[in-house]
């Protein structure tokens, strides 16, 4: 079984900085697992620790059912695709691909066979005698993949392999890598900072921040049920609109959420969608609205809708993205935690009521110009609620 298991894996650098406090994860055999997060979140560090390029300071790493903490990269039987491809400049494509096999002292005939097979699969056969400097970016990337495939390893580790490609090539290669992984069925760890890549490629995606996995789930689950404010704001493009609000329960079983001067009415039925709310007292709460939860309703009742002014309009053909200023204060994951420690919550929220730019996605597209007044309606069943720690309320 070539699963990869992390048991409280920890990384501390010599100067004391704790890059990864403790990671627990089990990647199943054959799974395509994506580590995604902002730069510095520890995803590359985790990958390198899995590869054996960084020491593991604590905890255990298992590949299959073997503890591999102290094993060399070769002994772990993993292959890696680097961000800059790391192709040996003085060797031809064929030699690059065959190098690892040569290191394993595999007979030449077998090496040739494997290299030719992989080159054929990746359309590299014509390039086998070229040196890396004579290859395009996309070709180099494929050679880097070929080098990994030829190893027939227990797992692939990929460190942002597509970041250096232009957008079109990236989309193409994404599909190819995906298809390849499925065909080969090899456990794959894929690191990227691009959430689109993560969403389109992973069986499961682990969103990381500050060395901790915030949430690991299938892409749709991350989108529909983010575990906290950070994941909510990270997954999805354009970003989810997050703001501070105040929850007030009414006598009828429903509640209202402060939205600047207005209040959003939540019916009792809708409120039942969040059973976890019973543990949440009235008061400050963080609310998330995805851009698609807004609807363009120019004829709606002003009491039931939002009147805003479009500050930026992006007509994208299939949809319109309207940026507008909302009279609410923006929430991000950092300050939610800090806020929880401030006293007199309600006052501070009202007093510091700033403005936030929100983005709404209108489908089908609407023709609007900058400065136009826009009346939007909110679908309150599509709210995301988070407590003062930033965790999702379910």
């Amino acid at each position, binding site marked *: 079984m070539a699963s990869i298991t992390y048991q409280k894996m920890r990384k501390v650098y010599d100067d004391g900085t704790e890059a990864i406090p403790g990671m627990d994860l089990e990647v199943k055999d054959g799974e395509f697992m994506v580590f995604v997060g902002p730069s510095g979140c520890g995803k590359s560090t985790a990958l390198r620790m899995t*590869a*054996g*390029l960084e020491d593991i300071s604590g905890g255990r790493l298992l590949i299959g059912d073997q503890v591999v903490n102290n094993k*060399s*990269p*070769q002994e772990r039987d*993993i*292959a*890696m695709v*680097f*961000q*800059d491809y*790391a*192709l*040996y*400049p*003085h060797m031809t494509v064929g030699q690059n691909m065959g*190098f*690892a096999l040569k*290191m*394993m002292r595999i007979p030449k005939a077998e090496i040739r066979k494997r290299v030719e097979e992989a080159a054929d699969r990746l359309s590299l056969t014509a390039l086998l005698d070229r040196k890396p400097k004579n290859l395009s970016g996309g070709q180099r990337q494929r050679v880097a993949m070929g*080098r990994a495939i030829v*190893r027939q390893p227990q797992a692939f580790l990929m460190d942002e392999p597509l970041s250096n490609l232009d957008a079109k090539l990236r989309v193409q290669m994404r599909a190819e890598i995906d298809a390849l992984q499925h065909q080969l069925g090899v456990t794959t760890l894929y690191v990227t900072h691009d959430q689109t890549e993560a969403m389109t490629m992973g069986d499961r995606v682990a969103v990381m921040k500050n060395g901790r996995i915030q949430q690991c789930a299938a892409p749709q689950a991350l989108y529909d049920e983010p575990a906290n404010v950070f994941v909510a704001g990270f997954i999805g493009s354009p970003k989810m609109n997050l703001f501070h609000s105040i929850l007030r329960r009414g006598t009828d079983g429903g509640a209202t959420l402060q939205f600047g001067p207005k209040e959003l009415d939540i019916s009792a039925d809708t409120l039942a969608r969040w059973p976890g709310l019973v543990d949440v007292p009235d008061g400050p709460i963080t609310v998330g609205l995805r851009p698609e939860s807004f609807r363009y309703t120019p004829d709606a009742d002003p009491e039931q809708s939002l009147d805003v002014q479009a500050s930026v309009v992006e007509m994208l053909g299939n949809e319109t993205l309207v940026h507008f200023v909302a009279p609410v204060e923006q929430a991000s994951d950092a300050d939610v935690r800090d806020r929880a420690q401030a006293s007199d919550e309600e006052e501070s929220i009202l007093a510091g009521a700033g403005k936030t730019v929100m983005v709404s996605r209108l489908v089908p597209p609407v023709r609007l110009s900058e400065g136009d007044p826009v009346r939007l309606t909110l679908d309150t069943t599509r709210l995301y609620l988070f407590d003062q720690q930033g965790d999702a309320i379910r």
Partner: protein
Amino acid sequence: MNTPTKPAPGLTVDEPQPRKGKSPLRKAGTYLVMIVITLLFVAPILYMVIGSFKPSDKVLNGLAGFIPEDLSLDNYTGVFDRFNSPATGYFYNFYLTSFIVSVVVVLGGLVVNSMAAYALARLRWRGRNGVLLAVILLVIVPFEAIAVPLFYLLNDYRNTYYVQFTPFIAQAFSVYLFYTFFVGLPKQLEEAARVDGAGPWRTFFYIVVPMSKPVFASVTILTFLSSWGAFLWPVMMIDQPAFRPLPLEISVFLGQPPTDWGQIFAFGVMLVLPLLVVFLVFQRWFIQSVASSGLKG
């Protein structure tokens, strides 16, 4: 042809400055200066080369020494004839000595110093920082500072080949040159090699060395230059003709009256020939080596 638009009123446009290109007169002047300087540098060399083909009495002849007349190879054959016994030494022996010593110092140095530099640059081991510091400190020590004590310590090994090359194979400066180069190589390549299953040795031979041609060339050239011209050490350690390298022998030759200038110059030409050839063929590398050794300082 588009006519350029006038600048808006209120904006001033400077007159374009005259191009830096010089007038032909200045160019000619510069070339003249360069040629004069070249003559100053080349004159003694020319003198030697021309003189090596002339009969000896015409060499020490004032300015006429420059005139190529009565050219022949007599001096060259004369050199071979002159050194014809164990007492005088054989000319091919002098050459052989210089050759053996230089080759061992250069090749041995390339192997020994590059390996050490790689271990210091890329491997993790206890004591690495200490050894690195020691090497950097040793760069400061010029050979002259240890010549006398080495002379005392190795006194029993005089008149051999190995006393001429062994002390010079390891050079702190060469290690330092290799070190700074290796440290500048992209780390990802070595990581890829590591993931591919190459340990330190194989990474070094298959990946690092092929990528380090410039520094290997530099070290080869600089080491060869200093080894072929070695004088101080042979002066102290060698008194038998059989083990004399060329520079030492030419000074002995000079001191043996009567001074046969033609032959001495022929000797000199043969002495410097390998250096000149390497220099002219590998000029760019040569100059590059010198420049980078200076910038590293």
